[in-house]
């Protein structure tokens, strides 16, 4: 489903590459943890799949199609199939919690009635029922993060890309969110999570891809956060 072929990424103005030759295959229905120290290139890899940034060299394929060759309208269609959780949340400040989550469905042209039902369900699943009408600035850190997760899962995406989705969430809620991701994965959605939550990674025994200084140093089928 997602194929990364010998991708290198050197950000403008930096000498060292954030990714220096990475190849990775992710099949439909996979559940993958991306782990590695801070600055290893996890977010960079996710941004490449999402085409927030372009690779310096190498190729990224989504469903067999080269992401670099997509026309704008095709790119939008691909993005509509991806549920993205940003490391820095990226909520729309001018919109309420409900509107933020609903926006992911509005761009798909869903009917207001369907939107209302699905948004309520998503908010409930992340434990935010009752916060519908708050603005993001009036939420706690963990609450904002969960709005981002709700926005990603509400549209039943083909793929979920989640960048550090539990960094501001407590232990209990983190566990529940991981169960949520597992649930969604069971229904066929591919899930890719970059995370530092070693306990959850170790507990779930999923595929683990470990990055270090821009290189893949480990790729295990039922892996753990680290070898200790």
């Amino acid at each position, binding site marked *: 489903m997602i194929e990364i072929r010998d991708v290198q990424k050197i950000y403008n103005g930096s000498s060292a590459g954030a990714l220096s030759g990475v190849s990775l295959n992710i099949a439909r229905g996979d559940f993958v943890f991306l782990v590695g120290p801070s600055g290893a290139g996890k977010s960079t890899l996710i941004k490449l799949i999402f085409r927030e940034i372009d690779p310096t060299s190498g190729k990224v394929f989504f469903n067999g199609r080269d992401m670099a060759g997509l026309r704008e309208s095709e790119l939008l269609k691909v993005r509509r199939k991806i549920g993205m959780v940003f490391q820095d949340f990226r909520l729309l400040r001018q919109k309420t919690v409900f509107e933020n989550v609903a926006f*992911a469905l509005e*761009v798909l042209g869903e*009917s207001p009635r369907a939107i209302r039902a699905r948004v309520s369900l998503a908010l409930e699943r992340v434990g935010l029922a009752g916060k519908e009408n708050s603005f993001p600035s009036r939420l706690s850190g963990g609450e904002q993060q969960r709005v981002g997760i709700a926005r990603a899962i509400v549209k039943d995406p083909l793929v979920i890309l989640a960048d550090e989705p539990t960094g501001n969430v407590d232990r209990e809620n983190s566990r529940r969110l991981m169960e949520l991701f597992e649930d969604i994965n069971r229904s066929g959605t591919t899930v890719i999570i970059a995370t530092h939550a070693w306990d959850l990674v170790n507990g779930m025994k999923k595929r683990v891809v470990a990055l270090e200084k821009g290189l893949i140093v480990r790729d295990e089928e039922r892996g753990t956060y680290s070898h200790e």
Partner: protein
Amino acid sequence: MNSNSLRYCLRQSYISLWRNVWLVAVTAGIIAISLAMLGGFLLFAVNAGQAMRTIESTVDISVFLYDSADKEEVRRGLIALEGVESFVFVSKEDGLAEFSRSLGDRVPLSGLEGENNPLPDMYRVKVVRTDLVPVLAAEIQNIPGVESADYGEHLVGLLTRVTGWLNKIFIITGTLLALGAVFLIVTVIRLSVLTRQEEISVMKYLGASNWFIRFPFLMEGIVMGWTGTVAAALAVGLAYFRLAAFMQRETLAFFLQPVTHMPTLFSILATLLATGTAMGGLGSLISVRKYLKA
């Protein structure tokens, strides 16, 4: 874009307008000021143009006749000329009376009546356009019986130059003002977009199409432009009609009469409205475009 999306866009525009009501008001205010200046300037230009034409129309050719001339022949000669608007005959007696009046009736010209009258008969000729005066004067000179065809050579030269000169000023100033207004509007909207740059990029990441993102900005721009323009039109219109009423009451000078020809005024109003609305919409579009690359 299906009907759900369209409905969403419209609702969103409405919400966005209310959430940014302060910014919208300020931009509308700036548009109003710019357009009020533009409108005031257009009115001034129209009035100055009319005043110039009024002054021009008073420049006439004095055609002095030989005592022996055949008035009827001269009359036919004048009728035959193209560019002559009208003419009147002024007999030597009328001429003396006019002259006496111009001296304030205080100077006794009693010795000059009848046979002693030193003035000749004359025709006073009005011409359709000032720049024709010199040509026509020369042609009139050739009509038999005409001693001389005289006109304010200095005044005609002056008027021709002032008219050309005012036209230049009007075109340059008007262009500058309009450019300034557009620049202001684009800047303000761009700043407003700049503050929402992040929001726009997030929307793109969520798969929103360009039109989906543009729409609320476009509506916002149009509403800003339109509100500002209506305010400007109201202000300028009110001020102008008060001024016009005042000027008509005062009858300052024959050439200082305000233009009240409604079609002219309405076309200025229409220009303002169209300009403002387009400015707002276009300004928004231009400003948003930059942030819409995938």
